[in-house]
Structure formats: C-alpha cells, structure tokens
C-alpha cells in the first residue's frame, strides 16, 4: 500500500483570458457619435481588483448634458412615429449583437466592476440580452400592455443607473424606454462606465438612429444636471434611497414622470421545516452574490429559533469554501468591492456591528490580495433588531442573523423596516410559504429560492424601496403616458 499523501484541494488559477481592447480615453455618446466633452474634463475609471486605471472617461458638464438632451429631443419625433415593427427590429438586433459580443462585455464588466466573471458571464449578460429581446417584442403590442388607454410615449427619458449591475441596469432602463417609443439620455455610474460605452458601439453597429440613445458619463453632478434638465419628461433612477429622495424633491415642481428603484434590507426567512441544503445555498446566494452589492440582497437572515444553531453551523461550513479572489478567475465566488468609498463604507458598518455588541464571524482563512478592495464574507450573530447593521442597508457581503418563533413573528420582523424590495421564504409547506409571501411587504418574494431575475418578471419595491416596476408588463407602464 502506498503511504497516504496529503491531498492539495486548492484550485489552480483559472483566469478568463478573452482579450478585451481598452481605449485609453472615452468621449460622450451624443447624437450617435462619440464626442469630446465640452467640459474638457476627464476622470479615471479603475479596476477595483488592482486599483489600476483602465481608461479615462469624459465628465459631462452642463453644455454636454444640454447637447445630449437636445439630441434626444430631436430624435424623438422620428423614433416615436416609426412603425412599431421597425422599432422592434432595432431592439432585436441590439439583443443579437449583445449575445455575439457577450464574452467581451462580461470580461469588461468584471474588470470595471470587480464582480466575478462567473456572474457577469452567467447572470448579467444573459439577462441583458434577454431584456432587449423581450422588449423588442413589446413594440407592436403596447395597446395590449396597458389596457384602457392609448399607449403614447412620454418623450425624453433621463436615466441614472448604479454601479452594481452596470450593463444590466442600462438594459433595464433603455429597453422598455425605446420599446415604448421614447428617447434616452443615460448616465452610468462614474466607477463603471465602460460597458455602457461599449453598448453605444453596438447601437452604432445596428444603425440605431442618432440621438435615440445618448450616454453622458460623469459623477453625481452630471446626474443632477440630467434629472433636473427642463426638457426631460421622465426620470428613472436606480440607486440609494437618499439620492432617490433628493431626486423626488427636485422633480416635485415639474410634470416629470418619476420611477425610483432604491435600497433594501431584505429578509430571508428560514423556517425549521425548510429544505435545509437548498436554504443554505439560498442564503449564500442571497447575500454573497455580487459581494452583497445588490439592492435586493437577503441581508437580514431571519431563522426559526429551534434551528438557528444548525443553520449557522452549516452556513459557516459553507462560508469556508467560498473563494474570494480575482474577478476574472472562473473559480472566484466573491470578487472585489467596487470602490474604495464602498469598501470604507462597508468596513465602517462592520466596525459598528462589533461596537454595538454583535458577534462577528468570518470564516475565510486565505490571504486577501494586497491591492484592490476586498472584504471576506462576514456574518453577524447576536444581532438585535435595533442594531444599526440590522436596520441600514450595508450594500456589502455582510449578513445579520435574527431569530423568530412563529410565522406571525417572522412576518412582523420581516416588515420591521422602511424598505420593501424583496424577501425570501424557505419552508417545505406550501401553505406557510404563501401565507408569509402574502404578509411581507415586498415587491418580489422568492419562495425556496433567492435572487432570481427575468425580463418577463416585474421587479421593484414597496415603501422606501421606491416606486415603479421594471420588467414584464408592469414595467412598461412607467414609459407610457
């Protein structure tokens, strides 16, 4: 017999090597062409996995935003009057071209955002293509979508999107707007502009009429100039509740239509009779998908008291096998945090959790890279409902665990928040699952699953998680008069 040898279970690196060309500098996409910013200002977008600059991005100032809105206004008449089947043709071709360039876009997204290539490749990009394909088909069916009124487009849509799903959020905003006959000025987040600008290339490739979609890059000030522009008829924003409230205030004196998709502190409820293997995977997916930088993340774990030790035992075991590492490694489960600012914000919440007396559990025992922004998956036990980490949106890989005894208490605790974006319910009893689903105030409820998205399925929140839906028929209402 051979002497037993210690087996090395560690993975060899499996880098995604698809080559992506990066231009050193990007202009603004206005009137169908890339143009230098009149502001003459640029800023760098960096790779959060190594803090190195990827490209220089134009910072749109007032006259740039004016030019973009003007281009969208000019394009509106032609686009809105285009025969619906022709409009659909453009959207179908966009979807196809995205599928063809999916690998390039996935790699670029992982570079700019820090999320694992596994996710950009298998989640973000398929959903992006589906969103355009689904909405393409709506163009000639709008009269069936909103019964009782003649479907009319609104005009120029100002759309401001976040950095956590950069291209997916662009698709969620642009596809329904165009399908309904509107024109768009989109502002991507300042830390993740690259995939939206690559999408602009695709729009050129499919000969989308100039001005139908315009992309202005920049930070908060560019976004403010855009949503406050007097010649936009519709404002759509995805981001923090704080900024959403500011936008709501700025639109108050106008006739602009507004939809807001904001923050969350979503409950993930585990009953004692849950299918436990799936539930553990659901908890992991709920909070560590995209490093927890997900507005609908299942960041508040509510566990039936009788199984809390079992759940935490299994969960910590599972946490040990989560691979934190380079976003472009195909084995990576948890990538880089998007920016230094976000890293500091999440770390300050972690410090606050410790300070307020909760027990911090970190199971990752590897070494985090020296450069880049990293946080190992983190769990807090012994959390009280009044703790800051149980109330405020952390937007990072940090899970708080609370307990309950009865379904009523689970519902009450689930609803003990100003937010209402999503909820998860894990139980083998269908009647209990539906009772809890009916009781929670949340726009999306996942029963025995979590973090599922689809172009046909409306997404959006109750309460301070915003208003309006994206996806499905409900999503179209936001873009029709």
């Amino acid at each position, binding site marked *: 017999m051979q002497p037993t040898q210690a087996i090395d279970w560690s993975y060899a690196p499996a880098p995604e090597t698809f080559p992506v060309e990066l231009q050193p500098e990007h202009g603004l996409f206005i009137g169908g062409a890339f143009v230098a910013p009149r502001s003459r200002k640029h800023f760098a977008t960096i790779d959060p996995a190594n803090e190195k600059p990827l490209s220089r991005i134009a910072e749109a100032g007032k006259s740039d935003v004016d030019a973009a809105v003007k281009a969208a206004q000019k394009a509106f008449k032609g686009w809105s009057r285009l025969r619906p089947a022709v409009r659909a043709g453009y959207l179908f071709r966009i979807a196809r071209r995205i599928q063809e360039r999916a690998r390039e876009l996935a790699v670029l997204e992982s570079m700019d955002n820090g999320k694992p290539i596994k996710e950009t490749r298998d989640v973000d990009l398929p959903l992006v293509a589906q969103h355009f394909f689904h909405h393409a088909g709506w163009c000639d069916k709008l009269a069936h979508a909103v019964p009782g009124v003649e479907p009319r487009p609104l005009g120029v849509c100002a759309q401001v999107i976040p950095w956590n799903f950069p291209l997916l959020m662009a698709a969620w905003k642009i596809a329904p707007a165009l399908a309904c006959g509107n024109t768009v000025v989109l502002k991507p987040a300042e830390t993740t502009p690259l995939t939206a600008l690559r999408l602009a290339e695709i729009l050129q490739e499919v000969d989308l009429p100039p001005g139908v979609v315009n992309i202005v890059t920049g930070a908060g000030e560019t976004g403010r100039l855009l949503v406050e522009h007097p010649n936009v008829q519709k404002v759509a924003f995805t981001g923090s509740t704080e900024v959403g409230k500011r936008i709501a205030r700025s639109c108050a004196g106008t006739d602009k239509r507004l939809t807001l998709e904001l923050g969350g502190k979503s409950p993930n409820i585990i009953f004692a009779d849950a299918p436990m293997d799936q539930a553990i995977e659901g908890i992991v997916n709920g909070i560590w998908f995209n490093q927890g930088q997900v507005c609908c993340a299942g960041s508040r774990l509510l566990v039936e008291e009788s199984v809390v030790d079992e759940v935490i035992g299994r969960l910590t075991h599972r946490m040990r096998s989560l691979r934190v590492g380079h976003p472009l490694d195909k084995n990576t489960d948890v990538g880089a945090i998007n920016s230094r600012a976000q890293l500091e914000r999440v770390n300050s919440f972690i410090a606050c959790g410790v300070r307020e007396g909760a027990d911090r559990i970190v199971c990752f025992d590897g070494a985090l890279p020296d450069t880049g922004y990293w946080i190992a998956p983190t769990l807090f036990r012994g959390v009280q409902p009044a703790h800051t980490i149980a109330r405020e949106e952390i937007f990072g890989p940090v899970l708080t665990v609370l307990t309950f005894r009865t379904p009523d208490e689970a519902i009450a605790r689930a609803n003990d928040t100003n937010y209402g974006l999503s909820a998860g319910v894990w139980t083998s009893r269908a009647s209990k699952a539906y009772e809890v689903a009916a009781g929670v105030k949340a726009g999306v409820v996942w029963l025995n699953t979590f973090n599922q998205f689809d172009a046909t399925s409306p997404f959006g929140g109750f309460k301070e998680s915003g208003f309006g839906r994206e996806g*499905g028929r409900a999503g179209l209402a936001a873009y029709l008069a």
Partner: protein
Amino acid sequence: MATVTKTWKLFIGGAFPRTESGRTIKAVAGGTVHHLCKASRKDLRDAVESARAAQPKWAASTAYLRGQILYRLAEMLEARRSEFIDAIRATSRVTPRKAKAEVEASIEHVVSFAGWTDKIAIVLGSQNPVAGPFYTFTGIEATGVVGALAPDESPLLGALALVCPALAVGNAVVLVASERHPIPALVLSEALATSDVPGGVCNILTGDHAELVPSMATHRDIDAIVAAAKGKHAAALKAGAAENMKRVTVVDPATDFTDARWRSPTAFRGVTEAKTIWMPSMA
C-alpha cells in the same frame, strides 16, 4: 314647525367628531349659514391613525365582499340622490341639470368600481414565463393608507374618482373634501356611515387645503396620495414623495372625471403595488 338645520362634522373612524380645534368655516347655502368643521393637522393625524388601523382587515377581506360593500355604498348614494344634487348646488352656481348629471355619474362610478374589486387582479396580474425552472406570477395589492384631495370643479365625482380605485383594492383613505364645495363630501360621509364600509376605511375631512396639504404631503404614515391639485399644492404633494417615498398622483382639478380613463385599470396605478412571487417548479 321649526326647521332643524344639520350640524356638519368630520368623519373619522366611522364616527362624526367635531374638529378637535373647535374652528369652523362659514358656508352660505340657500340662504342658510352652515358652520363646517375646519379640520386641523391633528384631525388629519387622527384620520390617518383610523385608516391605518382599519386597512389590514379591509385588504384581507375578499374581493367579492369589497365589491358587495361598494355596491351597497352605491345604493346609499342612490337613496340620497336629491340631497346630493342640493349639496352640489348649495355653494356653487351649477345648473340643476349639471348637478344631476354629476350625481348620476358618481353613482355609476361607484357601481363600476364595485365590479372592479374582483377583476382588477385578473387584468393587471400575470403569470410570468421566465427563462428558467420557476413558477412566477405577479399579483397586485393595496398600497396602504391613501390621502386624497378632492377638486372644486366636480366635488362629488372628482372625490369618488380618486377614492374608488383605492377602496376597491383594499386601501384605506383619508379624503380632504373640496375646499370651496365641501358639502357633497359631507353627504358622502353619511352615505358611507350607513353603508357597510367599515369604520376608518374611508375618512373625510373638511378644511383649508393650504393648511392640510403640507401635512398630508409630509405625513410619514400615508403611503400614497391621489390629488386634484395644481401650482404650489401640486408641488408640495409631490415633494412629499421625498419624505417616505409616497406614491403621488396629481391630476388637474379641471380634468373630466367622466372620461373612460377614470374607470380603466389606469386609475389603479398610484394605489396598487405589484408583488411578484417566484418558486422553483422543480425542487
């Protein structure tokens, strides 16, 4: 025989309290001086509290039951047909014919929404054919507590056009009556009291819009606002969305509330929430 003139009061939690402030508004109607309640911010808060308490049970009642209750409300309006016509004309100069038309449209409106209670979820809900092994569907729910602001232009029909969709899906409502022509809403409160609409589900206040609008806009326990307003009231109400993400729908007070749009699914837009439920189709 001496005539007895009616004391008009507020309608909160199914009861008719006077305003806690003791203040009144003078309204001259048909040569008679009426003293209406000038509701205070505290009255508004009380009404919101009543609405919040009544809402869950109303939303949990079956759509069939809500339909029957709204139909019963229409019956109560029918019984007060002439009183409503007088109420509309009491403080305005509309012709009897026009007042009669508004009352008839109002009754028809309530009947229409009695019929919507068990249909709107059919029309706005969906099964979503997602690209994966999941059974996914979207239903609609009441938003919660709704503040409504009635127009002067059609004080009865306008009020009902704003209130009926909210009630039909299970919201509870705090209605602020038309400022210039509040009496039709007060007659409505009597119809509500004798219908089977549970106390607190629909509350009615009379008073100064300039005083009540800012409170309604900023009240953190109001989830949605449907208002006939313009100018600074419209802006104040919309800014209220920034307080707690209220869903705010503002329409021009001169809107034609007999338009088919007001009886269409669109009328439910600002007072319903879409809830999407996913479950694995194979587990």
